[in-house]
């Protein structure tokens, strides 16, 4: 199991256990973490699973693919640390990963 922390717009942190192979979006939905909508169910087609990766995790998590960058155009307040959480797979070396959810998803 891998611990993932989601910090919402108001600063409330929620830490849940993610399964290796699931996505960071699925992990949030499964545990009822608010702030991620995931309208398209993880198909990289809606951009309502937008998160900001905490600075110290950015390198490990990696950069979005060109397709994900295209979808990020539809998100709001996109920052260099923006990712779509349905495109990040939970891996053992992401244990402790912290992401922030934006003020709103679309």
């Amino acid at each position, binding site marked *: 199991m891998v611990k993932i922390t989601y910090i919402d717009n108001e600063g409330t942190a929620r830490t849940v256990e993610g399964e290796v192979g699931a996505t960071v979006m699925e992990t949030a939905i499964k545990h009822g973490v608010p702030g991620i909508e995931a309208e*398209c169910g993880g*198909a990289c*087609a*809606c951009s309502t699973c937008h998160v900001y990766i905490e600075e110290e995790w950015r390198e490990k998590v990696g950069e979005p693919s*060109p397709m994900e*960058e*295209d979808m*990020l*155009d*539809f998100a*709001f*307040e*996109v*920052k*260099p640390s923006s990712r779509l959480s349905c495109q990040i797979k939970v891996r053992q070396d992401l244990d402790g990963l912290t992401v922030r959810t934006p*003020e*709103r998803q*679309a």
Partner: protein
Amino acid sequence: MSEPIKTDVVIIGAGPIGLFAVFELGLLDMKAHLIDILDKIGGQCAELYPEKPIYDIPGVPFTSAQGLVDSLLEQIKPFGAQYHLNEMVESVERIGDPLFRVRTDQGTEFESKIVVIAAGGGSFQPKRPPIPGIEPYEGKSVFYAVRKMESFRGKRVLIVGGGDSALDWTLNLAPLASHLTLLHRRSEFRAAPDSVNKMMALVGDGKIDFVLGQVAALKGNDGQISEAIVKTNDGSTFDIACDVMLPFFGLTMKLGPVAKWGFELKNNELIPVNTENFETSVPGIFAVGDINWYPGKLKLILSGFHEVALMAQKAYRYCYPDKRLVFQYTTSSTSLQKKLGVSPPPPPQPVKV
């Protein structure tokens, strides 16, 4: 006002389920008109994920969403359905027993014996960017679509986005606007490379500006925008003076007019139906696909396909009250094959030895 279009069936929504409804209705001799607010056929499949794979269409191990739409169009071709795109159905009124008058926002009127609502997640509408205080500007100096190009002549136009709509309108409005700025969050575009090249050429000639950033707030008075406050990727801000702003952030599904047609909706967004024939509480109006609700409902394409087959049986009773309906297979029924315009290969001849 011109005469209403008279038809057996009006199908609201040209998504995959509306399309397959044409097939099942067609086999039973009912003619359909389809109406969709989108400029293309295929609903969510065509608008949201055309290139993505689908693996759970029975008998089709793999197809793309657009591939599925294309196959459906080929499959329903024999039935000559008519499409009315770029039109939103605004009202459905019961005028007979059953007979309906259906009206669109473009003024088209239909008179049909039955209505099939295949409206999916609702009508596609432009996404509104969450810029604080944008509402008073909407429709006055902030527009999500261009209806009349002339109204932008001589204006300072700010276009926001990096897709085809943003680029197309940049190219189209550049000659009309007194000054045009294209604002996008990065220097890569989703739009067709050809449009991007043309846009870049205009920038090179000094005809338009291309600026990197995202709109953070608006300034103006009484709905008239004067400046957009833009945030750059490094966090600094600056203003862009403009008379109109056109943000293009793609489309999202909103229930839209369906909410006003008098159904008691489940969770405020779904039309309850019975599972015998997918008829709504109004005799003669059916709801199929993602828009309907019944115990156990799954928003899957295959479920919608099943729903339209049963719907067509009941629809037949309204359209042909005096005729008896005989259950037939497309494999063996020559009358169905005639409707489909196919002739099966002759049975194999016995081989002489």
